[in-house]
């Protein structure tokens, strides 16, 4: 049982950072703002969530675990909320969806 928990937590602690880095690369390389919000979403929820989950499995039943659970709940609720507000603000300011434009340009050519 302990061994299973260990393996699970180490898997989380390895996969989480990898997902974070993948999302980060997406943040740098994706063409427009809205696509980049998607990349940020991977790091902020899945990557961060897996790392915290790994830490929870390491901590065992204690106050530390309760605090980590609170952190994971806050992250899972706050980040999508903030990103939503951000995307809405960007849309209201008229930030364009670039990839779609290129397709349109290609279609009209």
């Amino acid at each position, binding site marked *: 049982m302990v061994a299973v928990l260990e393996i699970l937590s180490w898997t989380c602690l390895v996969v989480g950072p990898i997902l974070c880095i993948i999302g980060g690369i997406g943040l740098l390389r994706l063409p427009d703002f809205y696509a980049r919000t998607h990349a940020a979403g991977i790091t902020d929820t899945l990557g961060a969530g897996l790392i915290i989950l790994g830490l929870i499995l390491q901590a065992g039943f204690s106050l530390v675990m309760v605090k980590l659970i609170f952190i994971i709940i806050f992250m899972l609720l706050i980040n999508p*909320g903030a990103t*939503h507000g951000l995307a809405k603000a960007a849309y209201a*300011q008229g930030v364009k969806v670039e990839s779609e434009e290129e397709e349109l340009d290609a279609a009209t050519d």
Partner: protein
Amino acid sequence: MPLPIEIVLFLFLLSTAIAIARLEDLFAAAMLTGIFSLLSAGLFTIMDAVDVAFTEAAVGAGVATVFILCTLSLTAKREYQQPTKVLPFIVVGITGAALIYGTLDMPAYGDPDAVTHRHLSAKFIEIEERAMFSQNEHAVESARHGNEEKAVGLPNIVTSILASYRGYDTFGEVTVIFTATIGVMLLLRGRRHKKSFTSQSRSDGNDVVKEQPMRMREKIILRVVSKAFIPFIFMFALYVQFHGDFGPGGGFQAGVIFAAGIILYGVIFGLDTMRSAVPERVLVYGIISGLILYGGVGIVSLLSGANFLDYDILDTHNPAHGQHLGILLVELGVGITVTCAMTTIFYGLAGRGKQ
């Protein structure tokens, strides 16, 4: 092999600082100051200063950014382009070289035998450790009498020093916060002059202001999320306030977190709604009453025949309980003052644009 976390964080900090210096877009620079303080708080944690990191996190990530943004909304959002000057570089270079030359005589980083660690703080740590480990009350008592030194007996040494050993100093700091807030109120509460300039008189193309009516349901997700979160922020602030004796935290941190919660409410629901929830008059009384609570504890101990802010006298049977009571009250006073001061400053800076 230990990771060179400190080197990496320092490199991040330096590049952020250089970017702040180079950016002409003040809004972007304000966001980078947010990153800057997040990074520095991470570095404080690595350097074992958890209480400092706590304060920096609460102040830098939430409140400081909000204050700078409020100011930017009243002034220009871009600074003027200017040629790189040579003289400041020379001045800065000479000053930096002199300072680095000064460090050559200092003990190396992390040296346990440095002069700093050997005098006052070594004594504090020794006394507090003895008081903590001698669990029963009599042992604390004998430790006190044996050593002729007063002990506080709380796990968090920083809180003990802050509120008890150096309580007088902290009282001075709270007074500074009080005075600064009065200054902000005096500067910003008055009626605005009629023919005053606004930033719109010299808009420079980058103005993000657009007058657009906004319906309530447009922001429904943000409103629901923040409505769910503001109680958690307040609860967490209370936890920080009263748990500060045992873990990192205390009045200063709790005050800033509480104020951050109130400011979040104001940012989401607007200043008018915030005024009806937290009237400014209450805040003014709050600032004063927090300071009076702090000073009052000192006066009570003075009237009971001890020194100013000597909490031992508060419980004549058991001085340790007196210490704990004194620290609790003093931290509460600090928390109330800081909360009300930060919120008042936000009212002043954000409300200025609406008059």
